[in-house]
């Protein structure tokens, strides 16, 4: 009998063991898959987990895990980001009408499907003077997925940030939206759609925004250069030719380079230059540079000053190896200078100056650790970007209070470069790889974080609302490299997906 049982037991075990082994493999995968799925519609406030940066939670109701379904705590009184606007009674100083269309672009003898603003890509440059109120009236004529306009680098009030599903609903075909903000910072900025932003920005739904200081600028020539790659074709201001900029000998020329692509770009010149501003903030006492390139990360801007050379010659500024600006008299040219081996180190460029706040004693400290690991995102298996070890949507929601001094440690262990972009704020670089900054205050809104690099950055939480804090390689953002910064007591009524199909990435 006992041997009979033993034999039967072995037989049962023989059938059961493979099934159990299969379950042991499939069940965790199924759980991970299920956990990675996002609801048909959700608020970014429900994403991931709250990170208070070392402070006690005082407003625990403002967020929570997407799958917790516990909304009982979410009843704390909150202000909506929609209230964060400029005085509606104040008349506009600069009024612009922008119409977006989905159409075919002619780039370098090729026809590419893309987007236009007022019939062109890039759209018209918007110029204003510091202190003026800019009012942009957006009408979406034919962009099927809907559009928004995000004012990249301008620390606008939260309701004007132009992020679909976070600060507004995407503007559908036939819809309209009016953006109003005061041009408080002088500098070089750009605007682009933040609805389905990966294909829409790549397809040209963008333009430049220049805010002149009240006192004016000291350069005689002032030109913007939007670097953009359309379907693999490098362009400056939408043309795949070199950009000629007429300048007389001795004239000071200000070149505002805007990198609208997904990857960092090198800029170098055949002549000496000064780097006047980075991301719309002036460098303090910039010195003359020769023989070094400037790295301009995705979304970033650099203002360079060169002098118009004499003797009928020209200065050439390379925006990558493929495109260039030629500055000088008509017809003059100069051979392409070789790409320098050294890069201008902004950690030590210019002279130190007061920051306006003390980052030595921050009220909040956050980590933004970028990794890459296998797993599921939105139900899809793959190697995905992680933030503090978590995959989208289970990523941190950084929580601050107005007036906080915030220090963020950004570390890239993902093997690839990431252009990190925090909305609504400028951050100052304190250190890179633990080496402290010694030059001019290096303020950025788009920071090039190379693989195996770390940055310590600081900012003052002075712009209440709900803000994206994401990779501006918009492909990476679409792959889930998106976290948010939220002020205690503020909430957004908008939802990702939903009836207007908001898809900010």
């Amino acid at each position, binding site marked *: 009998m006992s041997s009979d049982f033993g034999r039967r037991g072995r037989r049962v075990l023989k059938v059961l063991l493979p099934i159990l*082994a*299969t379950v042991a493999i499939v069940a965790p995968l199924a759980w991970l898959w299920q956990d990675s799925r996002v609801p048909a519609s959700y608020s970014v406030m429900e994403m991931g987990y709250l990170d208070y940066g070392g402070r006690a939670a005082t407003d625990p109701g403002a967020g929570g895990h997407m799958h917790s379904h516990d909304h009982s705590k979410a009843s704390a009184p909150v202000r909506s980001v929609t209230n964060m606007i400029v005085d509606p009674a104040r008349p506009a100083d600069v009024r612009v009408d922008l119409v977006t269309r989905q159409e075919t672009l002619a780039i370098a003898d090729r026809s*590419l499907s893309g987007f236009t603003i007022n019939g062109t890509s890039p759209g018209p440059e918007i110029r204003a003077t510091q202190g003026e109120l800019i009012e942009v009236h957006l009408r979406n004529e034919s962009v099927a997925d809907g559009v928004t306009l995000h004012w990249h680098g301008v620390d606008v009030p939260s309701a004007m940030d132009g992020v679909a599903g976070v600060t507004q609903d995407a503007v559908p075909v036939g819809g309209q939206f009016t953006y109003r903000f005061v041009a408080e910072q002088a500098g070089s900025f750009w605007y682009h759609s933040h609805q389905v932003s990966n294909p829409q920005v790549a397809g040209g739904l963008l333009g430049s925004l220049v805010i002149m200081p009240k006192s004016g600028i000291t350069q005689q020539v002032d030109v913007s250069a939007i670097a953009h790659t359309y*379907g693999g074709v490098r362009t400056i201001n939408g043309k795949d030719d070199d950009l000629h900029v007429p300048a007389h000998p001795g004239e000071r020329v200000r070149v505002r380079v805007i990198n609208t692509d997904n990857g960092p*770009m090198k800029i170098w010149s055949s002549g000496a230059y000064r780097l006047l501003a980075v991301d719309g903030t002036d460098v303090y006492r910039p010195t003359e540079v020769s023989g070094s390139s400037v790295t301009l990360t995705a979304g970033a801007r650099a203002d360079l000053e060169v002098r118009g050379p004499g003797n009928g010659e020209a200065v050439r500024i390379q925006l*990558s*190896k493929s495109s260039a600006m030629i500055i000088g008299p008509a017809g003059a040219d100069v051979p392409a200078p070789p790409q320098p081996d050294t890069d201008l180190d902004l950690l030590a460029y210019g002279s130190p100056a007061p920051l306006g706040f003390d980052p030595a004693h921050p009220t909040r400290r956050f980590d933004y650790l970028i990794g890459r690991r296998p797993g599921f995102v939105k139900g899809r*298996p*793959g190697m995905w970007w992680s933030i503090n070890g978590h995959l989208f949507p289970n990523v941190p929601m950084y929580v601050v209070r107005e007036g906080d001094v915030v220090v963020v440690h950004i570390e890239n262990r993902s093997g690839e470069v990431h252009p990190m972009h925090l909305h609504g704020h400028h951050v100052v670089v304190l250190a890179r790889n633990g080496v402290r900054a010694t030059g001019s205050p290096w303020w950025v809104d788009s920071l090039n974080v190379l693989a195996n690099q770390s940055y310590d950055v600081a900012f003052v939480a002075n712009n209440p609302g709900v803000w994206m804090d994401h990779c501006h390689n918009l492909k990476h953002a679409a792959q889930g490299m998106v976290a948010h910064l939220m002020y205690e007591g503020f909430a957004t009524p908008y939802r990702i997906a939903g009836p207007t199909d908001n898809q900010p990435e």
Partner: protein
Amino acid sequence: MKTAYKVLAYLVAAEVAVQAMVMVWAIAGLGKWVDAGGVLDKSIMESEGTPPFPEVAGIMVHINNGFFVIPGLALLLLIISFFTKVRGAIRWAVVVFVLVIVQTQLGGLGHDFPLAGALHGLNALALFGTAIYAGRRLRAAAPAAVVDEQAPAATPV
């Protein structure tokens, strides 16, 4: 189940061959494009829409095969191996699976440490050989397994 095991093992091997082919195809296309004046940098690599040269498709195929198709096949092979009842079938399915995981890690690591890319190439050969062996040994091992199962009955008590 044995047929499924063999088919999956050979499919893994075939996919490894495809991986090698599409990469060389892509690099050859890149070389031709650069020869004609094309410049490759991060912006071009990350640009959307129409690719600068058609052989970019090779890289896309490599990524999709490497991250999805081959790990999926290796996982299926592992699961099927539990049911084949052939001695060593599980062991070799595990070896194939582990080599696939190592291969994806080396591929990712190669972005950071290019030398890992060289090991990625070497590990591909190991994976190819192991997958072929796993499939072939099943045919040889199958009768042995049957003998194993019948042996107790044939032995007089």
